[in-house]
Every structure is written in C-alpha cells, then in structure tokens.
C-alpha cells in the first residue's frame, strides 16, 4: 500500500507541537531526546492519519506537561543549562545597567558642580567621565578586577540557575 500523504495543515500542527515540546526538552540528554522526538513525530503522523491530527495533538496535552513527564521518567534531576544561561545573561545585564546608571548619575553630578572630569571604579572597572561645555564622554576600559567581578557574578548566576550540581548525581 502507498502511504497516505500528511496534509500541510497537519504537518504544520505537528511541527508546531514538536517545536514547543523541543523548547521544554532543551536540558534532556540530547541522544535520548533525539530518539524521543523521532518517535513522537512518527506517532503523530501515523495516529494523526488514523484519527485526525487535531485529536492526537490534543491527546498529548500541553507540550510542557509532556516534557515534564519525560523528565520525571528519567528518574533523576537534570541540570537546567538553558535556565543557567538566561540567569547569567540577566545577572551580567544587570551589572551593565547599574554601571550605566552610575555613569549617567555621575555625568549629572558633574554638570551640577560646574563640569569637569572624574575617574571612578564601579565594580572594579575604570571609568573616566567628562562633562564640560565642549565634551560629554564616558570612557571605560576593561581591567582584570572588573572582568573577574563580571565573570564571577555571571558564573554564580549560571551555577545557581542551572542547578549545575545535579550533574554530579
């Protein structure tokens, strides 16, 4: 018998489900995940042809709940690397934000005191701020202390966010 073709709508519905499922399975061991995704695509395609893709997708429930089911069946907690990367990005972004807010505040302060130039060291990084009638500038140069601080904060956020210690279990 010739396999029946899956309609474009059904394929779109299947792939949209798998895409959302993939998002929640990012931290699953990749080799096993690839097999699971292959099996799911196969099941969706064949069962969808039997009873309709809409019903099969509905039977699977929410992609996140399904992913949680697979994670629970692993029998051990896994590190959440994606969450760790997001946490590290947010932490470093927050430091940059604080540094900029600090610099803008200093520019305003310089203006209020008649202008001039000042050198500061927020979070260990050297920052030269100038506010004169001729020039408003902010020059920051990386140094070891600033780099260590930023990387350190990012690393701590990454370890805590990813629950990296789970890799030891």
């Amino acid at each position, binding site marked *: 018998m010739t*396999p029946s073709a899956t309609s474009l709508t059904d394929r779109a519905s299947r792939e949209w489900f798998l895409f959302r499922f993939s998002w929640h399975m990012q931290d699953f061991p990749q080799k096993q995940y690839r097999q699971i995704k292959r099996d799911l695509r196969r*099941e969706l395609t064949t069962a*969808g042809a039997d009873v309709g893709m809409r019903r*099969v997708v509905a*039977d699977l429930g929410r992609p996140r709940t399904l992913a949680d*089911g697979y994670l629970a069946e692993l029998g051990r907690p896994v590190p959440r690397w994606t969450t760790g990367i997001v946490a590290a990005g947010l932490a470093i972004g927050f430091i940059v934000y604080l540094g900029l807010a600090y610099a803008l505040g200093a520019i305003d302060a310089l203006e209020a005191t008649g202008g001039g130039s000042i050198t500061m060291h927020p979070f260990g990084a050297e920052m030269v701020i100038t506010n004169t009638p001729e020039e408003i500038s902010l020059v920051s140069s990386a140094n070891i202390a600033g780099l260590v601080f930023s990387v350190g904060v990012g690393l701590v956020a990454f370890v805590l966010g990813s629950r990296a210690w789970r890799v030891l279990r």
Partner: protein
Amino acid sequence: MPDRDPQLLKGVLPMLVLLLLTEDESYGYELVTRLQADGLTDIAAGTVYPVLARLEREGHVSSRLVASSSGPARKYYRPTADGAAGLATALRGWDHLSDTVRAVLDRAATPKEQ
C-alpha cells in the same frame, strides 16, 4: 466515574503497559486506546509515551518498525525477558499491596463491637 488521584495510576501504569504488551504487541497510540478501552478512559497519550520511553530505555520493552499504510512505519513494542521478569515482580508487589489495602479497608468498614 469517581475522581481518581493521578498518583494512584502513576505507580501502576508501567505494570499495566507491560501487561497489555504481553497480551499483544502495540504501537504507542494503540496502547493508549487499549488502556482507555479497559476503563482508563481519562488516560492521555502524553501520560503513556514517557512511560514507554523509559521502559524501552531500561530494556524492559523492545521495538520493531512495521510498515504502515497511513504514513511512516509504526513502532511496535513488546516486553523483553527483563520486562517479563519485571512484570512478574510488579504483579507480586501489587497483589501484596492490594491484599493489604483491602484488609485495612474491610476492617475499617466493619463496625467495632462495643
């Protein structure tokens, strides 16, 4: 149908899956419909697939691909020797647990003599 705590089913689902696959090999969605036909009408495919994946990963079921008229080949599952042994152990555990629970329930249902 009375409400059922999902945790009650979670504990015995691998046993039921192995039991049904012992009766007859099945592909994933068919297995779900068989469980539903046996009375677990509210069970979802999303509950069964992760259990199947674990049983296969642990070597309790094996699979083979069978050509299908409705698209790609279907993946049929059947218990391995390890799965059969695991099922026997699970059934003994279940019998013991259900006997114990039944005894406690019966005692609780019997009015105490004053």
